[in-house]
């Protein structure tokens, strides 16, 4: 499968209200061989993830497109990278909703911000964000994402990344980060 499998391997959901920043983050991620979906708001992100904005009780009703019983998930996202400052739902609000969701809480979340504010950074990290990137985001920042996507999968050894990309089959990767335990 080679390159095809590697490119289909990790799917990142990028959230940013700025069209320029969406274009930039998309390019940065695609250059790093990630599949990218870019949306312009937190509510669109939740919609994409199958989480209804109003129902965040972590019940079955909240994610009709996700089946608890089998391994297949309609939406397969390995990492969410979101801007902090957005109208309506901020990146922090989005982070909270994801971490409060039974289905989504294990998806790693990264926050981006143009403000280097320690209190903001700490708040996000405490809420469960894996990283906090200062904008403009660089390629070196994007390189930090891979270990977070690898966590919780069977491929935790970073030294094997290159080898794994070649042999990994799509079916196996699809069950990585779906918020509930799947035993194949």
């Amino acid at each position: 499968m080679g390159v095809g499998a590697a490119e289909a391997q990790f799917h990142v959901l990028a959230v940013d209200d700025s069209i320029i920043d969406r274009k930039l983050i998309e390019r940065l991620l695609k250059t790093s061989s990630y599949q990218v979906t870019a949306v312009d708001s937190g509510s669109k992100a939740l919609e994409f993830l199958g989480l209804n904005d109003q129902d965040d009780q972590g019940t079955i009703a909240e994610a009709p497109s996700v089946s608890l019983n089998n391994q297949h998930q309609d939406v397969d996202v390995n990492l969410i990278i979101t801007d902090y400052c957005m109208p309506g739902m901020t990146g922090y609000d989005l982070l909270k909703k994801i971490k409060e969701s039974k289905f989504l809480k294990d998806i790693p979340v990264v926050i981006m911000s143009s403000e280097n504010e320690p209190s903001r950074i700490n708040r996000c990290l405490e809420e469960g964000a894996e990283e906090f990137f200062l904008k403009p985001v660089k390629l070196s920042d994007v390189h930090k994402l891979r270990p977070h996507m690898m966590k919780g999968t069977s491929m935790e050894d970073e030294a094997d990344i290159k080898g794994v990309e070649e042999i990994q089959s799509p079916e196996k990767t699809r069950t990585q980060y779906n918020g509930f335990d799947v035993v194949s």
Partner: protein
Amino acid sequence: MDRNQLRRQVAHMRSSLIEQNYLDQQQFVQLEDLEDDSNPNFVEEIVTLFYKDSSRLFQKIDQALHSIPMDFARLDDYMHQFKGSSSSIGAIKVKNECTQFKECCLAGNAEGCSRAFQRVKQEHEALKRQLETYFQLRRQAGLVQRS
């Protein structure tokens, strides 16, 4: 002029734009590094997007500057968005003028805001002209990838 000479011209113009602080070296060079065979025009595309989007924001800022009373929080918010985009494409001088504007908003200085906005627009326009020339040069040099 042969291709090598044109390429040298492009490199020279890039250095000059960086030296004059029109562009941030690290950010702009990274943008160019993101170009490849399948995305040969990424920089021009994102810059074009920037100018389209800034046109939209400038209209909003203009309107807000003419509203009475002046809504400084709203102005600050618009400028914050524009500043972010400027920073993303590495537009230093433009970004610095945005900071000035935001300081006037913070101080509730209406006249200061108007003046600062004029400067933002001037730098924005100056950069646009420079980049138009730069992209034209790149096209002439047949550059689809950074050498």
